[in-house]
């Protein structure tokens, strides 16, 4: 059951990672007319169209992660402490903090993509997207590494 939840959590995280990366690249390096390379096509998306999906995927990944975290605390963390993986636990601690702070950003992020705040050129929207993108990438990498350290099914 825990393994199934962890895999589902990972799959949702992959979908979220793809969506937010599309959006971040589209706002920072919008593609010109006539995309040619794969990179051009990757960022030639309508970033606003991703906002709702990102909010739903972020919330789903956070809820699944919150459930899996209960099992991590009981079954995994004691092994990490015994093996003195303090850095991994520290990075994981930060993942928790960042994910929570990201949850609080979701309403503003979603609304800003519907109608940007009155700051001229949508700087707030770009900044919110970038912060969320950083949180998602951080969480994905740390979660992935921590999972690899323990090993599947061990």
């Amino acid at each position, binding site marked *: 059951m825990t393994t199934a939840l962890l895999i589902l959590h990972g799959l949702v995280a992959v979908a979220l990672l793809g969506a937010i990366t599309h959006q971040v690249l589209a706002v920072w390096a919008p593609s010109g007319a006539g995309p040619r390379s794969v990179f051009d096509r990757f960022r030639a998306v309508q970033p606003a169209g991703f906002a709702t999906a990102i909010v739903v995927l972020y919330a789903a990944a956070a809820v699944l992660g*919150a459930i899996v*975290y*209960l*099992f991590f*605390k*009981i079954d995994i*963390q*004691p092994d990490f402490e015994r093996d*003195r993986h*303090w*850095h991994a*636990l*520290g990075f994981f*601690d*930060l993942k*928790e*903090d*960042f994910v*929570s*702070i*990201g*949850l*609080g*950003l979701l*309403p*503003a*992020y*979603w*609304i*800003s993509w*519907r*109608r940007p*705040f*009155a*700051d001229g050129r949508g*700087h*707030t929207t770009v*900044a*919110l997207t970038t*912060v969320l993108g950083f949180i998602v990438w951080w969480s994905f990498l740390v979660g992935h590494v921590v999972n690899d350290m323990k090993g599947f099914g061990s």
Partner: protein
Amino acid sequence: MTFAPPFRRFALAFGTAFGPMYLLARVKGLALFTVYPSLGILLPGMHRSRDTVDPVLDFLAPEMFWYGWTATAALGALAIGLIAALAPACWSRYFWSGWVWVAPLLAMMACVYLTIPWFRQ
């Protein structure tokens, strides 16, 4: 789809307040509840296992504050968001919308500082 200005003010205030509220909850130990996953219980407020059992035994009932900190931050940010939504619209012109990403970013940096002890072990 458009949103009524009060809802926009709510989202802006909620997003701005959540990060600092989370940081406050984390620093001051203001967890709304504590979860004991191995026992399957949830206690209101912040409780440490070592306060009730011998510290060498607290691994038997590890406590989790993260859920409680998040709930505290959500509650605090909700209150601030509601105040912003109900406040006169003209007040919002004194509020820089950039705070909605600057405040969480500062809270994240402070969380990095709070995590340093893990890296000194």
